[in-house]
């Protein structure tokens, strides 16, 4: 009998906290999104029109958010994979130093890191003149363009991509890779047929951990972008905290969550569910 109630006692406080302050608020968010009226006198009346209005009004920001987040995820993957591979297989005794360097940016505040990029990408900076000579900075500036926002997102969420890929590469039985070589596979064949498929769970986890926070982010667009680079996070923040248009903001928030959930489900279907939930579900 004691064994039967014990897990519920252990689980109780945390589960209650998550239910009360995560699940219940989502319900309130949904309810608020169906309110109508002006600030101070909102009333609940199944006002579904909020959704249509919000979507038609802010469609560009929605599309832009997913576009920026998708590109940032792609760039982060391209940067993270070689790094994770180096740490897992080539670093030797430097492994812990490199792992430390990957998490080091987390030790400085997110906002200050983003502001540091504002400094690095500002028009007077030497980095921008180099990019300009390479033809990567049209008209000599990078700041306040979509490129700067995507670069900021890529940078800020890169550790979330590196760590899961590293974890899955590190777990690979090296003998499998050696077997590929013994069977006369070329280096690239071994990589694409053995190493890459075995690291797929890390890639799936990493892309989700990058894409989800990136698509809801508004800090990078705020500091590195201009008015024409606003993402859906900026709209939600401004509707909530500046214009106090709660129903519209709640509707946008809810649509954002639903859209991400749908994208994630499609992606998992496509990439294999065990890749994501394999460990979580144990």
């Amino acid at each position: 009998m004691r064994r039967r109630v014990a897990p519920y006692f252990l689980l109780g406080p945390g589960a209650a906290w998550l239910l009360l302050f995560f699940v219940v608020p989502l319900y309130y968010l949904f309810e608020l999104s169906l309110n109508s009226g002006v600030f101070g006198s909102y009333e609940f009346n199944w006002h579904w029109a909020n959704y249509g209005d919000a979507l038609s009004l802010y469609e560009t920001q929605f599309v832009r958010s997913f576009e920026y987040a998708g590109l940032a995820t792609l760039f982060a993957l391209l940067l993270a994979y070689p790094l994770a591979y180096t740490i897992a297989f080539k670093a030797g005794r430097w492994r812990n130093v490199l792992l430390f360097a990957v998490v080091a940016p987390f030790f400085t505040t997110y906002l200050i890191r983003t502001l540091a990029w504002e400094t690095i990408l500002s028009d007077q900076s030497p980095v921008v003149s180099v990019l300009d000579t390479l033809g990567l900075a049209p008209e000599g500036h990078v700041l306040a363009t979509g490129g700067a926002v995507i670069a900021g997102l890529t940078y800020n969420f890169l550790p979330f991509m590196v760590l899961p890929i590293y974890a899955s590469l590190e777990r690979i039985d090296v003998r499998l890779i050696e077997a590929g070589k013994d069977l006369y596979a070329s280096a690239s064949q071994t990589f694409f047929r053995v190493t890459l498929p075995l690291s797929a769970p890390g890639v799936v986890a990493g892309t989700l951990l990058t894409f989800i926070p990136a698509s809801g982010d508004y800090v990078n667009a705020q500091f590195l972008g201009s008015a024409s680079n606003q993402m859906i996070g900026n709209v939600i923040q401004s509707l909530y905290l500046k214009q106090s248009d709660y129903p519209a903001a709640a509707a946008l928030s809810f649509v954002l969550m639903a859209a991400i959930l749908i994208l994630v489900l499609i992606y998992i279907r496509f990439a294999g569910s065990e890749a994501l939930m394999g460990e979580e579900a144990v």
Partner: protein
Amino acid sequence: MGGRGGGAWRWLREHAVQIVGVLVVLYMLIPIVVIFAFSFNDPAGRYNFTWVGFTFSHWSNAFGIPELNEALVTSLKLAVLATLISTVIGTLMAMALVRYEFFGRRAANFLIVIPMATPEVVMGSALLSFFLILGTFSLGFQTLLIAHVMFCISFVVVVVRSRLIGFDRNLEEAAKDLGASPFTTFRLVTLPLIMPGIFGAAMLAFALSIDDFVISNFNSGTTVTFPLYIFGAAQRGIPVEVNVIAMILFFFTVCAMGFATWQQRRAEKLTSVRPEQEVGVGAGVPAGVSANA
């Protein structure tokens, strides 16, 4: 093509992955270097964006801005409390999930994963809606604490659980055979062995809390935390002291992390001092890395 040039070319080709890897690491460290360098800057106006001249004055005046100090103290208090609460209840949850089979386990796992898969802006706005409609909590330190504990719990559970999964339960059996009560067994055997995991989880919770901007932005009322101060100051120009404090926090965290790694190695040594050591799994994995995976 000459012999030497061919050799260099071959070396480059063979080490291409490492070269890219090292370049990416350098890219990750650039902003830290910039933040450090600009903490010695002597800007002419309010904006600390272009290099003007070298000065130590902002380091000696690190705590000279009252509002900044207040924000920092609020952030530290908040982070300590959120860490304590989330580490305790998260560890209990991890114990339940690893040690017991029970009805609702899958639902509990789902409840833990889903906050990590939700954008912060959604969590922030949902909590604000909740607080506004409910009306019982006035926005401020208490709502910040509720929010921070909420988003830290999941991460604590994940970290502690990974530590518990590799736990050798024979050690607990031995304690029980020697007459220890369940509580004594927990206090003297289980807790010391999972302590590095708990410590790691607590550090992660602390880092998440002290760095949180988005959720705090929604639920702070008029309370100002360190990130909120920076956000507010960004429009009117950020004082150089912010860089100084960011670097102090950075060095402090690096030291804490070094301490955590040292603790973990010590715990691994403790567990490995056993008469019949199993050979095979884990034998080739260097200490300190296996637990991170």
